[in-house]
């Protein structure tokens, strides 16, 4: 029997008495594209923070292919192959998009080389390939901080991909993007995912996107999982309609 790629067991954390994760357990299988939906403030981002070591749970465990990684620092978890794209893009805003990616690519070997240029051919080629794959080639030389939000989000995701992760966590990849652009971004993303054979978890607001792209969906409410299953079924569930769909 194969291990789930990621397994969360009874994760609990509270902020000022409000439970942002209340005994959350879930598993992500290899190759799966799992969506999380839920109202604002229900603890979706907190779950990503827990999985990547940004915050520690009060109780519970996180396993990556069976290995407990609870309480590890983000850098250590990142090196184990979990990469993350952020709800608010986190880029090196004073650098070009390409330079951001170069640092991401270089960081797989550590960044301890202080003499040879970062912009070396091998890294450049890989960066250009990624830029092409994510449709960012035209913006490669733009300063990351000057791009519109949609492109910054895409660059943020590309930077996560530069780490060649085993698991990619995406926090609302299409927020801040016009409804028209959403599907084209998702198409680009899905194409990249398939090309790289990635497993991913993505937090999403847009029901149509969840329905179209997710293999499975989890519905979050007040720090716990309200329902889960195939999007087509879950999104019909009256409780889900009431808490999530009605609100959105």
């Amino acid at each position, binding site marked *: 029997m194969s291990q789930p790629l990621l397994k969360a067991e009874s994760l609990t954390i509270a902020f000022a008495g409000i439970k942002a994760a209340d005994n959350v357990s879930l598993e992500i299988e290899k190759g799966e594209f799992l969506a999380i939906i839920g109202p604002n403030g229900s603890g979706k981002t907190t779950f990503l923070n827990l999985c*990547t070591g*940004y915050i520690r749970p009060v109780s519970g465990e996180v396993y990556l292919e069976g290995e407990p990684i609870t309480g590890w*620092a*983000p*850098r*250590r978890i*990142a*090196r184990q192959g979990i*990469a*993350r794209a952020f709800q608010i893009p*986190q*880029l*090196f*805003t*004073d*650098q070009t998009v390409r*330079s951001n990616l*170069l*640092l*991401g690519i*270089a*960081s*797989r070997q*550590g*960044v*301890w*080389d*202080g*003499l*040879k*240029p*970062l*912009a070396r051919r091998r890294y450049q080629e890989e960066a250009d390939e990624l830029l092409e794959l994510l449709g960012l080639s035209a913006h490669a030389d733009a300063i990351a901080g000057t791009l519109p939000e949609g492109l910054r989000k895409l660059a943020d995701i590309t*930077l*996560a991909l530069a*780490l060649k992760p085993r698991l990619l966590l995406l926090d609302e990849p299409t927020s801040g993007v016009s409804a028209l652009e959403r599907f084209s971004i998702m198409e680009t993303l899905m194409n990249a995912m398939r090309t790289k054979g990635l497993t991913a978890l993505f937090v999403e607001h847009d029901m149509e996107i969840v329905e179209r792209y997710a293999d499975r969906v989890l519905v979050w409410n007040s720090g716990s999982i309200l329902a889960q299953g195939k999007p087509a079924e879950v999104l019909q569930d009256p409780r889900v309609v009431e808490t999530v769909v009605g609100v959105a």
Partner: protein
Amino acid sequence: MKIIYALFAAAFAALAIVPFAAPWLQFVLTIAIAKGFAAVGVALLLRAGLISIGHAMFYAAGAYTAAFIVLWSGISDLFVLLIASTLVTAAIGALVGAYLVRYRAIFFAMLNLAVSMVFFALLSKLYGITGGTDGLRVPVPTVLGTTLTKAGFDIVLFYVALALMAIIAGLGVQFLKSPLGHAVGAIHTNEVRLEYLGVSAWSVLLIAYTISAALAGLGGAIAAVSIGHVLPEYAYWTESGHLVLTAVLGGIGGVAGPFIGSIFLEIVHTVAVGVAHNAWNLIMGATLLLVIFFLPQGLYGLVTKSADKTSSAKLGENKS
């Protein structure tokens, strides 16, 4: 970009003829370059978004190490002194840094200040070892076994400092382009993302801190053998402030910036003290204000800007 190298080469050539063309400038420039090394160290940390108001302690550490080596071991070869002082200061920097690079912003600045004040107090009070407030005299070193007169040694030291400046600038330019150099800047722009790339900001900063201390130590050692006397004042907090000012004034965009800032300040200082003794601080303050308002990239920004203008005019294109 080519033109900027030509500009630096010309400036370097101009400096190289100073011992013959303007002997009075030779000592001033030796000290300017010495402080320039320390200012480069401060600038490196500034790139990471960290202000050290304590780096004069490493300048002093380098100076006192040179003095101790001569006084205790009798070894007084210039190159041994410079190398050993740099290494010892690097080790001190690594020790102090291991504790300090956890902190950010005002905490980092103040803790550097605090440690440097303790360092200053120790230099002043440990009379038996450091000579207290009288400091220590540093005899004229030999150069590769050759004994020189003070005047002869000063000329050699000037050229050694000049050569070291060129070497450090060359290495520095490469460093800034390297993965590690980018990582130092990344701590300033987005430390969280850097950690999410699997990189330890603490380790990156510790390396940067150690390098910056080593550079300050090298500068201090040059100053010690040039002046021939080391004093606790080398470590005083106003000296640390001066280094920050030098780095900001010169500009942290490139390695040349702090050297330009240091040479500029030392020359302005020398001239201002001669012309208007009491107005020295006023002149300095006004200069700094002008630079901050009109040259946010420092004097270095002025150099690169004018170089860019010339080169794009030549090529007839509008590069940005």
